């Protein structure tokens, strides 16, 4: 009724949700059996920033848009340099790509048909 079968696998969101809730309950039980003897306000509850002090300025705490995944984008810089150069924003290039794809599709279709 509420599940999907693809012929070689199945997906049932209700069962998944029940399992998810079950795992939540188990992890809550595990958590509740933990040691509660930490001291608030001491170094035990402080934010760990690679050993640096927490900056006082609230703005400095926020990782802004382009800083996220900086490493990944930098690692893929060879790819991104090309793709960025490809998206020129010039209308003539839009048309050029359209005409190019049209030509390729023509060649394929005439070759096939």
């Amino acid at each position, binding site marked *: 009724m509420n599940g999907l079968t693809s012929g070689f696998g199945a997906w049932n969101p209700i069962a998944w949700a029940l399992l998810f809730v079950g795992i939540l309950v188990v992890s809550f039980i595990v958590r509740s059996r933990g040691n509660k003897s930490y001291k608030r306000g001491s170094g035990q509850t402080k934010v760990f920033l690679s050993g640096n002090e927490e900056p006082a300025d609230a703005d400095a705490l926020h990782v802004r848009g382009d800083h996220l995944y900086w490493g990944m984008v930098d690692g893929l810089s060879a790819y991104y340099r090309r793709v960025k150069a490809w998206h020129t*924003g010039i209308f003539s290039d839009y048309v*050029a790509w359209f005409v190019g794809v049209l030509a390729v599709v023509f060649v394929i279709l005439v070759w096939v048909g």
Partner: protein
Amino acid sequence: MNIGNLPFVVAALLVVFGLYTLLFKRNLIKLVIGITLIETGVNLFLVTLGYRTGGISPIYTYAPEAQQMVLPTPQALTLTSIVIGLATTALLLSFAVFVHRHYGTLDVRKVKELKG
């Protein structure tokens, strides 16, 4: 080559000229002209499709009997396409006016703030 095929050649040339204009001209107004060139080519193609050599115009009012008429459907299509073309051209030109007002240029290669 059959002389009757000449309009098809002209239509194809118009489309190609229009695409050339879109690809290699820089002025936005010229790009709009390029689009209308393609449109004219397509319209010419449609009208030519319906043409029969020696056919009369497809008006039934007091039409002589047993006379071949050109096909009316492509003409209706062309007319609709012209009406649509009017609207698109007007809209494109309005956008060109506003682009010029904001960017101070009509050069398509300088109107590229939306990139990446």
